[in-house]
């Protein structure tokens, strides 16, 4: 980020608890292509503590986990495990040391039994055969000890996500984990399930296991953790003892207060209403009333899973709404599928460019033109001249750095891939552009370019809906900002008429 830091005086306070250091990070650094995901992080984890790591999306939390669990190699810096330098080059090495992670989405085998999953990769054998009876007995004993009332011979997929998460934790414990990372573990859990998980985590702590707890939910940090470290834009802002801080402090540390020059906002005259929803409800969202007019950006802010993507996908025809109305230029419409939405003049640039946005192993040109091949055709045949001209123009206009239009998208950096996703829609001549997390995982320079593209769309009389979990960008760019929480709009603000703290508090629900 291009800003200096406001909270400088207390920046490096580590607030040690006095325990023995188990894992020590020294100037840990990670680059992904042009993105600086983690910036010289110094952090010491003490044996037997519960250490929370908080920060906005894109602050570097997941990068940190992936470096510690050996999924990615670090770019620079040192890691010490009980004082000795370690490489953490492979997941295997991390697991052997005793570093395990329990992910938000459970990575176990859904078709196997609970016992088989607990023993997966480390099965009990007798005479060269699986000792199923013993594994079932031991697994049941473990479950009983942990206080889970679950049968060990149940098929994993018959359990709730929360129960599966508990199984994943039990599995890590059985493997002798010394250092256990929880990545947003409660996102999909009910209250009771979360309570059971907390009980288990506290139990692990008394057994001497070090816990790293990553969460958006600050109240959980205060309920569970000993210390908390705040990441912002890939850098460590500071570490506090939980007993010596409060939510307001943490929120102030999490968000960058600097007004950044990268946010390019032009004021264009507001025109007629393009799209309006009236109390729209559907799977994952409820009572959403939103209006988009020509020349304005509507921001939808909230945490991941707050219902924003579900809402816009419903407008785009993905899942039908169950209640409420959608008005397109004043007329009520029922949008049943994506093609119908596109025909009306709606373009949606999806959240996950890998899963939804791009045909990764195909060429840049094909991806850019995918939505407009009809326009590039003369009768049944594609005009190859028009096709290449359209691709080349877009590559130039959106400034995609690629060796050629035929190069596969996989050969591009993340930022350039994102420009392909967005660039695809600019030729489409849509009236309403929906951008779902348009700047996830792209560097500052590319972000600025993407914001400039938005401005050019507005000048041409289009309207924009922008979903983002990165508060500064929606804050600076949106003319109207709706805050989502648990599928509902909990607050609506005009352009910059509330503080970051207020908005974040509304989104978190603290």
């Amino acid at each position: 980020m291009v800003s200096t830091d406001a909270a400088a005086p207390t920046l490096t306070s580590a607030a040690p608890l006095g325990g023995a250091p188990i894992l020590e990070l020294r100037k840990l650094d990670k680059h992904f292509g042009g993105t600086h995901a983690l910036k010289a992080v110094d952090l010491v984890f003490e044996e037997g503590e519960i250490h929370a790591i908080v920060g906005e999306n894109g602050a570097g939390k997941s990068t940190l986990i992936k470096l510690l669990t050996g999924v990615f190699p670090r770019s620079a810096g040192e890691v010490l495990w009980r004082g000795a330098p370690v490489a953490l080059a492979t997941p295997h090495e991390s697991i052997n040391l005793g570093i395990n992670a329990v992910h938000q989405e459970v990575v176990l085998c859904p078709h196997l039994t609970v016992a088989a999953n607990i023993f997966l990769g480390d099965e009990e054998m007798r005479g060269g055969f699986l000792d199923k009876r013993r594994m079932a007995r031991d697994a049941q004993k473990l479950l009983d000890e942990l206080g889970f009332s679950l049968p060990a011979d149940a098929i994993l997929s018959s359990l709730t996500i929360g129960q599966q998460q508990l199984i994943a934790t039990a599995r890590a414990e059985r493997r002798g984990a010394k250092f256990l990372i929880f990545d947003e573990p409660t996102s999909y859990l009910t209250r009771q399930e979360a309570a059971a998980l907390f009980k288990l985590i506290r139990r692990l702590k008394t057994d001497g296991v070090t816990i790293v707890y990553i969460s958006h939910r600050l109240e959980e940090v205060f309920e569970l953790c000993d210390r908390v470290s705040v990441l912002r834009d890939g850098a460590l802002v500071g570490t506090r003892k939980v007993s010596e801080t409060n939510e307001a402090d943490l929120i102030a540390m999490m968000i960058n207060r600097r007004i950044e020059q990268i946010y390019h906002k032009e004021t264009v005259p507001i025109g007629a209403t393009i799209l309006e929803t009236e109390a729209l409800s559907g799977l994952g969202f409820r009572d959403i009333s939103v209006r988009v007019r020509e020349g304005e950006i509507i921001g939808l802010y909230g945490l991941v899973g707050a219902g924003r993507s579900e809402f816009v996908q419903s407008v785009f025809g993905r899942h039908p709404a169950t209640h409420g109305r959608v008005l397109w230029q004043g007329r009520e419409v029922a949008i049943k599928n994506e093609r119908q939405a596109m025909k009306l003049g709606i373009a949606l640039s999806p959240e996950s460019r890998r899963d939804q946005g791009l045909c990764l192993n195909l060429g840049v040109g094909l991806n850019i033109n995918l939505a407009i091949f009809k326009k590039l055709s003369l009768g049944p045949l594609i005009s190859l001249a028009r096709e290449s001209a359209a691709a080349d123009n877009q590559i130039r206009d959106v400034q995609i750095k690629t060796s050629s239009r035929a190069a596969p998208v996989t050969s591009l950096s993340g930022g350039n891939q994102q420009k392909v996703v967005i660039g695809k829609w600019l030729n489409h001549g849509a009236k309403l552009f929906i951008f779902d997390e348009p700047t996830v995982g792209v560097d500052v320079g590319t972000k600025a370019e993407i914001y400039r593209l938005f401005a050019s769309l507005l000048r041409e009389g289009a309207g924009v809906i922008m979903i983002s979990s990165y508060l500064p960008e929606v804050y600076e760019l949106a003319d109207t900002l709706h805050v989502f929480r648990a599928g509902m709009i909990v607050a609506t603000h005009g352009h910059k008429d509330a503080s970051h703290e207020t908005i974040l508090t509304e989104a978190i629900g603290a």
Partner: protein
Amino acid sequence: MLLGLILLLIMLAMWLVLSFETNTFWTANNMANLLRQGAMIAILAIGETFAIITGGIDLSVGAVAGFVSMAVAWLLESNLGLASTIAGAITISLAIGVLIGLFHAFGVVQMGLPPFIMTLATMYALRGIGLYITNGATISITNDAFTGFSRASFLGFPWTDGTWFQIPMLFWMVVVVAAPAYILLSHTRWGRYLFAIGSNKEAARLSGVNVNAVTYLAYVVSAVCAAFVGVLLAMRIGIGLATQADGWELQAIASSVIGGTSLFGAVGSVHGPLIGSFILTTINNGANLLNWNPFVQRIITGLLIIIVVYFDTLRTRKR
């Protein structure tokens, strides 16, 4: 394109070696025969490639060809007026192909069955239906105009030894299939959509591609090509029997894969399977002329598949 060139060179190298090793290979007669032998697998492989590019597969093409050979023979030998004329019987046979393709796509799209399972099921069922209808009997085709077509040729040129090389009608049928297939795959938006679906269905859908319709297209093309091969097969052997073309689906898939089609989808061409099928035919033809044990042909084919796909994996891994 580069792979296509390499494959072409491999085939020419094989021809060169066989020309030196035997004095029966490089003759107008044998080369015309080679084109005739390879024609049917080539057409199957082109159709098969459409299904594979979408990330699917069509295991039924051999069974469709066998079933249609029975159907066309039955039509020609019956007294059904227009339907028993050559044109009528061929039209109905191709229509059967369309129906089978629609059924495959219905299973894949509407019922959500994996393409492997859906086409495996019809592969078994079609052979069964064909045998059931004829009670396992072979239908001999008495229409000489029909069977004569497979021996006919059109145009020719002087061969290196002074004899006349006649281009077999069966090979012209490959051209008749390959040319529109090439245009469909490389010069229409439907072709682009086939690749897009094979690469990322969700991205294609969110870009406004009618994923279901394009999937239907792929399976109909595959089945119609197979039905066409069924007609040619009936012409060539003069009989209709549902158990014919046994194992041809694997030869078609092998040709396609040797021609650079990725079984993961989104990679493929028309010229690739075309050359791939004639490489396989050359192996068979050459092994015969060299008096090799016919079983060796299968071993060579197997090794070739491993080698070609291995090089392809290397190429994609580098990315």
